[in-house]
């Protein structure tokens, strides 16, 4: 755990971007998220860690209402983005998702060209005034996704023809192309090699200057490297939430300690 010492920790100063209170998620009879309270701060990277199946993805999907698409999922609790309840009846999830972007756990590029994959979001939101503008957005996003050099010569090739790791970076590029205020990343680096991982982490660091990023990861080192806040989930409950440095060096809960030292999970 030497990595964490490298990260300068500047927290406390940020305002709360997303405030989640008493969150419960049921999948039919399964109680997947129990009484979770988390504050996602602005201009901060928050890492969600925890053993497989503990509900990290489920909770992440609550934050941009992607659970709406699962018929059996029921979400309760209060989720406030900049003080506005995102589950309010008047909120159009479409608008919410433009503000809260997402990179999914499994890479899911559209079966269209690489260019169209990235351009789709800006197009439907009308972010580009003309073709040149759109080209700029696409290039910039692909650069941020650390994949520009690999695909710049074949933007017309299908996105589904890329390798798994390239697809994941394409999805990252697609997510950042719409300039979301909050970016939710579900294990974005699980299929990436160390070089691409480092590039994505660089991107996360860069995004932090303007946005807030929530990242789910199974790599303790990664959580320690990129995040300022860490939340540890276990069996659907939030066990511990706090500054990354404190979680990794001085956890309060014994379960957190066993997990980060590799004894459970």
């Amino acid at each position: 755990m030497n990595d964490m010492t490298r990260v300068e920790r500047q927290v406390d100063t940020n305002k709360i971007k997303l405030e989640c209170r008493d969150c419960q998620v049921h999948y039919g009879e399964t109680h997947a998220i129990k009484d979770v309270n988390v504050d996602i701060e602005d201009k901060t990277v928050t890492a969600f860690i925890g053993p497989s199946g503990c509900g990290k993805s489920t909770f992440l999907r609550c934050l941009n209402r992607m659970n709406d698409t699962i018929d059996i999922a029921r979400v309760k609790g209060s989720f406030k983005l900049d003080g506005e309840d995102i589950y309010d009846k008047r909120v159009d999830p479409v608008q919410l998702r433009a503000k809260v972007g997402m990179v999914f756990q499994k890479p899911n590029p559209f079966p269209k060209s690489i260019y169209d994959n990235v351009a789709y979001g800006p197009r439907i939101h009308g972010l580009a005034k003309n073709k040149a503008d759109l080209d700029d957005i696409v290039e910039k996003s692909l650069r941020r996704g650390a994949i520009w050099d690999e695909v710049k010569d074949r933007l017309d090739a299908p996105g589904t023809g890329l390798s798994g790791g390239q697809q994941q970076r394409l999805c990252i590029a697609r997510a950042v192309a719409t300039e979301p205020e909050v970016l939710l990343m579900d294990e974005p680096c699980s299929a990436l090699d160390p070089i691409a991982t480092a590039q994505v982490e660089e991107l996360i660091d860069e995004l932090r200057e303007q946005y807030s990023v929530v990242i789910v990861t199974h790599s303790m080192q990664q959580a320690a490297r990129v995040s300022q806040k860490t939340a540890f989930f276990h069996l659907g409950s939030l066990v511990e939430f706090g500054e990354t440095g404190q979680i990794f060096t001085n956890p309060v809960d014994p379960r957190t300690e066993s997990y980060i030292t590799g004894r459970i999970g």
Partner: protein
Amino acid sequence: MTDASMPTPETGRHSVSLTAPDARTRKRAQAEKRFRAYGIIAIATGLFFLVVLFTSILSEGIPAFKRTVVSVEFILTQQDREEAESELFKTKAYSNLFVTALKTELDERGLNVDINEDAIERLLGKVGGTIRTFYSENPDKLGQPVRFDLAASSRVDGYYKGRVTREAMQDSRFLQKSDLDLVDAMEKAGIIKQAFNWPFITGADSGVDNPGGAGIGASVVGSFFMMLVVLALSLPIGVAASIYLEEFAPQNRFTDLIEVNISNLAAVPSIVFGILGLAVFIQFMHLPQSAPLVGGLVLTLMTLPTIIISTRASLKAVPPSIRDAALGVGASKMQAVFHHVLPLAAPGILTGTIIGLAQALGETAPLLLIGMVGFVARGYPDGFVAGFTEANSAMPAQIYTWASRADVAFYEKAWGGIIILLMFLLTMNIIAIILRRRFERRW
């Protein structure tokens, strides 16, 4: 590795060489071989039946595309015409002229046979009328040599195709043994011959006593207008219903009920739709009887469940991650469906639609109930709109009508009609395959 089930060296598993398969492996290999043999036998059986089917269809149906014509060159002068027109039995006068012309032609080749007008009428029908009509329509051809291709009666046609033989036939008002001498003589002179039966393809249905004049063209047109109705109604309605049910509708009792009903509708016998069409469209709504419009409506009811079921299946087959991806970048549900899901489902929807249309094209029973029987197809509709509203038949109904007629000559027509029907189905399937390829290439 504390796993107790790990094979130990004593069981022999590891000691056997890789080139000598152990008993278990051999058994599995044998099972696989057996299964392959079953598969090949199954395919061979299927192919055998297909070959039998096609040879019988072709051997029975090909003769329908040939007809027997008597081809005589004929010069009619203005004077001949005036003389004939001044007589009491005008067509008889023309037919006398024809007989004379035929006689000279036969005499020239040294063939001497008795020709009387009755025999000519039995062989060729009312020749005089045909000639008279031709010249009154084309007066400029007077005085010039004109070649008349006159269709021989179906008995003569049958004599050529082996259906009628000298030994088996009996003299009747349709054909007498002595007439066959004339036929043989004309054949020697090269006057009578087999030609491609264009009238069968372009013509309309004929009376029961004139199988030679029966053609399938009019009912092809009837089928075409019906298919237009079916396509124009069932594709948009079916696809819209499926998209709504699959992508937007909430999952509740009501939608479950609809789903069950759609599946049941697909299994309802077509004749039920026929009687429903008769009751609702004709008796209640007073739409014209025997009209392709009504036929199309009935077949639409029949085709809708097929299209809905196949469209829903192909929508279901689109991975949900694509929908998530679209929603995740802020697309609305409708955008996700129309930009991403529908293009991926399009090949499946197309195939389902064409299968549904092909089913509808081959459907007979409901058409009989709403009066689209074969003998209604006596001519072509005058114009596009009339194509929907004027009484007409459809290919399978026409085939059914021919097959049920007493004269064996119609039997051959029925087979010929089936060949035409199959050609249309084949074309539709090829179109389906081409469209599929086209769409699928866009990965």
